[in-house]
């Protein structure tokens, strides 16, 4: 498509020079190292006196594995938070600043179609997000060697899920910021994606677990669940929860695991693909309608 490559290339150059992204990246990078080193120090202290931990009931190997699980579990949360922050930052700036500053006047007067412009912007935003979160994940993987490794596959699966969710958030902010102020767009997206969708997903999970007995209410939540984007979840979350329950000596029960989201199935993944297409199309529609 004529011009989309140039739009993508220079959007990436711009993104790489934005201080807010650099700040989020540095915070994420420092946070992951601090997490790893902190837990390692905790391990060193505890392993110097293994009998002092867990009333002496835990042997060093089990404790080592426990720390590793704890690290991976914190890592997942940290990656998810920073991926979302980066998604919001890219979504708020990639198109909005061109439209707000008047740069779009010069760009749109060139022989570039609005479709090529939107494609270039969305492409650059996705590549930028994957690059930044990918770098954080790479760092996380290196830090995992502090704990001897072994859970890298879990990290990969969760990383893909985190990026997939962040892409949806970014596309929503991108499309909204073409219509309204970018801060408002971020607030609306947060309410829609993190609050409303979160509540519906949790209630659906609870209904699925059989806590809600009324079939009609369950059906309502089923319908609502298929009206909002689904946050993808890898099998790592449930595997970790299962392992932690076992490590802590707790009895593994279905009820305890019911509160942990199940891994996303083909239906959720297909729904994710559909929502990505819908929100990308919305970005194009908003750019196409925009008069500058």
């Amino acid at each position, binding site marked *: 498509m004529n011009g989309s490559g140039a739009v993508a*290339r220079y959007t990436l150059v711009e993104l790489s020079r934005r201080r807010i992204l650099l700040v989020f990246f540095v915070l994420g990078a420092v946070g992951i190292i601090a997490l790893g080193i902190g837990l390692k120090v905790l391990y060193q202290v505890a392993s110097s006196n293994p009998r002092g931990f867990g009333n002496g009931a835990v042997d060093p190997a089990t404790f080592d594995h426990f720390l590793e699980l704890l690290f991976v579990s914190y890592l997942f949360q940290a990656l998810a938070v920073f991926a979302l922050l980066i998604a919001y930052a890219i979504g708020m700036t990639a198109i909005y600043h061109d439209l707000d*500053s008047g740069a779009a006047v*010069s760009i749109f007067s060139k022989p570039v179609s609005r479709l090529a412009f939107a494609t270039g912007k969305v492409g650059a935003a996705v590549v930028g997000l994957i690059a930044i979160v990918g770098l954080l994940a790479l760092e996380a993987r290196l830090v995992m060697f502090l704990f001897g490794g072994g859970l890298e596959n879990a990290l990969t699966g969760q990383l893909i899920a985190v990026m997939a969710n962040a892409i949806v958030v970014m596309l929503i902010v991108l499309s909204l910021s073409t219509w309204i102020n970018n801060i408002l767009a971020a607030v609306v997206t947060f309410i829609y994606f993190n609050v409303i969708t979160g509540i519906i997903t949790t209630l659906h999970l609870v209904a699925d677990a059989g806590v809600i007995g009324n079939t009609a209410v369950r059906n309502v939540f089923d319908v609502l669940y298929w009206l909002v984007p689904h946050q993808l979840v890898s099998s790592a979350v449930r595997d970790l929860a299962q392992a932690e329950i076992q490590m802590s000596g707790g009895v593994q029960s279905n009820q305890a695991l019911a509160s942990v989201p199940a891994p996303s199935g083909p239906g959720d993944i297909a729904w994710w693909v559909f929502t990505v297409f819908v929100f990308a199309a919305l970005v194009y529609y908003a750019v196409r309608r925009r008069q500058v």
Partner: protein
Amino acid sequence: MAAVVTVQNLRKRYRRRDPWAVDGVTFDLQPGQAFGLLGPNGAGKTSVVKMIAGLLRPDSGSITLFGTEPGNPVARKDLGFSPEDPDFPKFLRASEVLDYFASLLGLDGAERKRRIPETLAFAGLDTEHRQIRQYSKGMKQRLGIAQAILGRPKLLVLDEPTADLDPIGRRDVRALIERLKESGVAILLNSHLLSEVERVCDTVAILARGRVLKEGTMAEVVPEGSNLEDVFVQLVEANQPQRDHLPSFISDATP
């Protein structure tokens, strides 16, 4: 010779309750012609040129740009547009902005290497390595003109091109317009600087409240013994409500 741009009975308003920003404007522009669009603030000049550049959609009427409608990217291949208050992606440098726009214009690598340094030198930005966010208004205006001529356009639309320029910059823009006219480029100039328009334009249209009050060659619009400023003031004042020129707290004040 086919007109470069034909505007027919163009109308535009921004909200349903608003008065027409552009109301029945009609004109055409031939190759090598310099056309001046004049009018007071809010007359609709910028709306007209933005519709020609495909940035705004008219409510009614038609525009033909190089034989097709301006929304078609192909029509904008030979258009150079320097907007009023130009701005650019703020974290890029001038050379990157020109490279970006050269890519959008479809210029190949060799042509980009040749044109970009020359265009930067013309704009006086060849030694400037800061990002756009650190530019003054005048520097952005220079870059606005530079990006407009980068594609060697057949129609150059300049919206208040010299508003933020120093006298040397103004002289350079005048020389540019003269040179482009000689080579057959059509110029559409929006400006408040009537002396400038008088110097470079062959034809003018005076707009007020979205309507063309008078249009013709410079000789037709400006009678002998008069000047463009007198004609402009008379026409515009006759077509807008009378107002006091000074606030009473200034005019009534005793020294």
